[in-house]
C-alpha cells in the first residue's frame, strides 16, 4: 500500500481528466442549457399578431390537436442564422409544423430576414417587447419548444437546432407524441 502511494496524484489527475472529457465533449448548446421548469406543463397562453399578417392573431390554442415546434428567433440573433438551414430542411420534409416566435425584433427587419434566407415557419407571432418570451423562460434566442397535441411543453432545446439534435431527440419525440 505504501509503495503505491505515489500513484495517488496520478489517480486524482485521471479522475479530473475524466470529468473534463465527459463534460467538454457534450455537444454545443447542451452544455450551458438550464433545465426548464415548464417541461410537462401547459404552454403559457398568449395572443400576438402575426408577422406577415399584422391584422391577424396567433394563440397556442390555434395549434391544438397537432404536435408542433415553437421556435424563438430574431433577425439580430447570430445563432438563428446557424440553425436556419436545418429548419428550412425540416420544413421542406414536412415532418412537423414550425411556428416562429419573433422575439424582440423590428417587423421590417424580421420580414427582410425571412425574405432573404427563406421562411421555414407556418407563421411567426410577433413578441416585440419580449413579454411572452419571459413567460416561456426564454433567456437567449434561439430556443425551440416541442409542444404536444394537448398544448403541453414536452421538450425545450436551447441554442441552435442541429441535425444531430433533430435526429436523436426532437424527431423521435415528435413521432412518439404523434402516436398518443
Amino acid at each position: 500500500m505504501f509503495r503505491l502511494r505515489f500513484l495517488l496524484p496520478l489517480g486524482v489527475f485521471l479522475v479530473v481528466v475524466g470529468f473534463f472529457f465527459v463534460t467538454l465533449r457534450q455537444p454545443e448548446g447542451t452544455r450551458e442549457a438550464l433545465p426548464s421548469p415548464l417541461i410537462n406543463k401547459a404552454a403559457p397562453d398568449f395572443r400576438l399578431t402575426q408577422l406577415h399578417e399584422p391584422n391577424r392573431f396567433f394563440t397556442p390554442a390555434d395549434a391544438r390537436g397537432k404536435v408542433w415546434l415553437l421556435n424563438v428567433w430574431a433577425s439580430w440573433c447570430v445563432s438563428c442564422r446557424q440553425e436556419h438551414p436545418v429548419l428550412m430542411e425540416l420544413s421542406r420534409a414536412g415532418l412537423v409544423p414550425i411556428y416562429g416566435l419573433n422575439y424582440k425584433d423590428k417587423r421590417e427587419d424580421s420580414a427582410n430576414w425571412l425574405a432573404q434566407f427563406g421562411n421555414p415557419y407556418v407563421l411567426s407571432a410577433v413578441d416585440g417587447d419580449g413579454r411572452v418570451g419571459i413567460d416561456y423562460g426564454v433567456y437567449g434566442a434561439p430556443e425551440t419548444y416541442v409542444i404536444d397535441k394537448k398544448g403541453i411543453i414536452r421538450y425545450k432545446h436551447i441554442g441552435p437546432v442541429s441535425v444531430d439534435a433533430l435526429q436523436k431527440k426532437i424527431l423521435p419525440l415528435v413521432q412518439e407524441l404523434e402516436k398518443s
Partner: protein
Amino acid sequence: MKHVLFALMLCLSPLAVVAGEAQLTNKDPALEKRVMALSAELRCLVCQNQSLADSHAELAIDLRNEVRDMMKSGKSDAEVVDYLVARYGDFVRYRPPMNTTTALLWFGPLILAVIGAGVLFFNLMKRRRRVAETALTDEERKRAAALLNDGAGETKA
C-alpha cells in the same frame, strides 16, 4: 425696482433647475431601492455570474422592469420570486432553496469538512502512536549521540 426683480429672479433660478430635474427622473426612490435589493438576489440568465441588479444585458433590464411593474401593482417580494422561478427555475435565485436536488449543494461543504477532519484526526492519532512507540535502545542512543557530535564537529571545522 426692475433691477431688484431681476436679481430676485436670478436668485430663484436654480430652484427651477432642481424642479426640472426632479420631474425628469420621476422615480419613487423607495420602490427603486426595493427593486434593486431584490434584483441583487436574482441571477441574470444571460451572463450567469452577474445578478439582475448588476447586469446591463437586455433581458436583465426587461426582467428588472417586470419586477418593478409587479412591485408597483402591490406584489410582495416572495410573489415576484415565485413568478420568476416558475419561468426560469431555481437557477434564478442566488440563494437556492433547500430541496432534494440542492441537498448536495447545501450539505456538500459540511460533508467534505467532516471527511477532512476525520482524516486529520486519524493521521494525528497514528503519528502519536508512532512517536510513543519509538523508544531508543541504549545502543541506538549512543549512535545517535555520536552522529550528532560528529555533525557538530564538522560544522565547526
